[in-house]
């Protein structure tokens, strides 16, 4: 009974991990060579990223501690061009799961933040400063720099586009 309850409490991530372990167990019986090669490959990745993970978790903890939704939202209320700047910076610095931000952004929408700025904010959340050390393990500095610049530029384009499209949609729905 207790075991059944424990199983029920397992989250999707644990099911996923257990399934993968089960697949490995099957391979260890059916194809030992493949199993050993996979474990070898796994060790290589782990050795490569473990030191970086320590740095990433320190940076994530610091960013979670200092850059709270309250701090970010305070600056999203600025006006004009400054607003775009703070939306981009806010998106980049924001942390935590994305769904946590939806109610806060919906609240800001009611207070005048445009759909374009919300889209721009959400796009820039893709740029994760604390994760840069891990990215550097796999990609060059030059690549990361160019990618970030292009993504920031595209986030503004997407914001302007969303503003236009939402205006068109709203006008159409108003005229009906």
């Amino acid at each position, binding site marked *: 009974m207790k075991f059944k309850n424990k199983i029920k409490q397992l989250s999707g991530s644990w099911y996923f*991990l257990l399934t993968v372990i089960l697949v490995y167990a099957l391979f260890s019986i059916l194809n030992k060579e493949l199993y050993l090669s996979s474990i070898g490959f796994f060790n290589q990745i782990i050795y490569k990223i473990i030191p970086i993970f320590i740095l990433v978790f320190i940076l994530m903890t610091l960013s979670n501690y200092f850059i709270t939704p309250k701090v970010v939202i305070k600056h999203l209320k600025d006006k004009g061009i400054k607003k775009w700047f703070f939306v981009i910076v806010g998106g980049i610095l924001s942390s935590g799961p994305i769904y946590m931000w939806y109610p806060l952004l919906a609240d800001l929408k009611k207070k005048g933040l445009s759909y374009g700025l*919300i*889209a721009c904010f959400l796009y820039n959340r893709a740029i994760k400063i604390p994760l840069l050390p891990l990215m550097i*393990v796999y990609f060059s500095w030059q690549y990361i720099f160019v990618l970030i610049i292009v993504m920031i530029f595209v986030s503004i384009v*997407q914001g302007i586009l*969303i503003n236009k499209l939402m205006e068109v949609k709203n006008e159409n729905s108003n005229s009906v």
Partner: protein
Amino acid sequence: MILGTILLISLISVVVPKSFYISVFSKNSFLDSLVGSLIGSISAGSPMVSYIAGGEMLSQGVGLIAVTAFLVSWVTVGLIQLPAESTILGKKFALLRNLSAFIFSIVVAIITVLLLGVLS
């Protein structure tokens, strides 16, 4: 999640031969970025996982355009979060944002790789 994904990536890297990746990714910039974006869009999880998966894809011979589209769509397109986003921020906005993010992931990938080519 991260541990499970690394285990899975290790298994796939050993089981799936390089020739498979070469056959899926045709070296056509647009098609490769489209495939990369599709895979990234339907994937979910921490961006950390996408960096590891993307890095291993590169080492398996997948082109940088496809990997970039994969990385960008992983973090900008949220199919899993779409119901929550639709409910809280509106259906039209959520659909337009995710659709445009998908298209822009291809644009970002092509521009990034072109700019890298010019710079290097």
